């Protein structure tokens, strides 16, 4: 199966790989997927408490090229967004941007889940109601 150029680009030059300090109150961590399914994504956001803006985003992913590209793209999109706008990121936006084939749509779903999980972790830490799950 051939990968799109954008998937190859994100795979070869992943943006924002790394780890944020999860003990900090303004850092939200989302860990989704399972090793036996072949995909695990960990996506983290750092939020400016005053403005509600995501100032930093990092990821680490165990998975295929499409999974790595989906999470790399997600971190790129998250930076600078408000939490409210971040919640609007839909997995189909990722599918479109990366030209993912049907068998790889689950990678984009996982990325959306990771975003929501990270936001929920941040909200829970700050005594806010978690938003409804995907």
């Amino acid at each position, binding site marked *: 199966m051939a990968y799109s150029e954008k998937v190859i680009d994100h795979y070869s030059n992943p943006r924002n790989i790394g780890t944020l300090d999860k003990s900090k109150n303004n850092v939200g961590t989302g860990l*989704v997927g*399972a*090793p036996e399914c*072949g995909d*695990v994504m960990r996506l983290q956001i750092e939020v400016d408490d005053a403005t509600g803006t995501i100032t930093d985003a990092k990821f680490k992913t165990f998975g295929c090229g499409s999974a790595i590209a989906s999470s790399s793209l997600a971190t790129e999109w998250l930076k600078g967004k408000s939490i409210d706008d971040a919640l609007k990121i839909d997995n189909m936006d990722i599918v479109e941007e990366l030209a993912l084939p049907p068998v790889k749509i689950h990678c984009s779903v996982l990325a959306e*889940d990771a975003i929501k999980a990270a936001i929920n972790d941040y909200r829970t830490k700050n005594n806010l109601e978690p938003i409804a799950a995907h």
Partner: protein
Amino acid sequence: MLKLPIYLDNNATTPVDPRVLQEMLPFFTEVFGNAASRNHPFGWKAEEGVDYAREQVAMVIGASEKEIIFTSGATESNNLAIKGVFEMYSEKGNHIITLTTEHKAVLDTCKHLEKHGAEVTYLEVGSDGLLNLEDLEAAMKPTTILVSVMFANNEIGVIQPIKEIAAIAHKHGALLHTDATQAVGKVNTDVNEFGIDLLSFTAHKMYGPKGIGALYVRRKNPRVKVTAQMDGGGHERGMRSGTLNVPGIVGFGKACELARLEMDQDAARLSKMRDRLDNSLLELEESYLNGNKENRLPHCTNISFKYVEGEGLMMGVKDIAVSSGSACTSASLEPSYVLKALGLDDELAHSSLRFGLSRFTTEEEIDFAINQTKEAVTKLREMSPLWEMFKEGIDLKTIEWAEH
């Protein structure tokens, strides 16, 4: 100068040796006759080509030319052997024994027969991929007509103790069929030395063309018969009808001759290269060899790199063509059932690569493969959350994963 990409998937198929192609070419154009045409020179010439090839094919497994039935490949040979024995010996019994790690051509044939009254025992293998002979002994019944055990496994290359397996089958009055697709021409598969009654093999795994294979059917001690699965003109002594693929057969013959003459030197050279590949890759932390290290084919290896995913890894080793036990690379989205049968966790099965060397593989290519694989594994681990957790000493089994 190294030519990229490098082909290291020779358990899937091999290139045709140029010497094989040379033999085949005249049989497409000049000697194009139907080998069954008995009344003109076109047919005679084609038949001569087939007769000569049949001897070459027989010799590589120590058989007589009368014991070779040409088929379209190993899948058809396996079907003919198992279904053919089941039908022919139905009065004697209906029990077949095979392994969980067999190729689908054997497993699915057995499953098909279960719907038609067969009782099939699927024996499990040990963590090294080898059958425990006591398990076989215990599974034998008075109704057992056939034991079908592969000579060498297509994913991990382990070689089963066929001689001992055949002896157990014979002691209980059953026949021994072996799918030797990966083994013929790579290691000794002499049918008399090993006591084999039926043997499936194919040309395209041994530098011959695709679309041609054979089934060996023993003629003496005992005389084995199979019921035809393809009806028609009664070719191949009635066991497999259909106009013979003359160029394919001629190529198969040449491939078998070359394999017979060059097997020992190929095996010596390739096992040295394979061992170097193994040793270098196993230097990586948390990498594991799959299957028995001693009893295996000389030209292949299968290694799991924990905490990286196979398909992602294959993308990283973009200049080498290998295959992976990862779910993402298969149609079923299940990780390799062979690796799982060895008791590997799903995650280790997901993280495996199979390397298959060929007669044409060079030392430079192996150097390149080692470097690119090491780089890719290292890079992917740096971006793997599982690797980070492992390094922090977190037991991944204690985490509640959200299955999806």
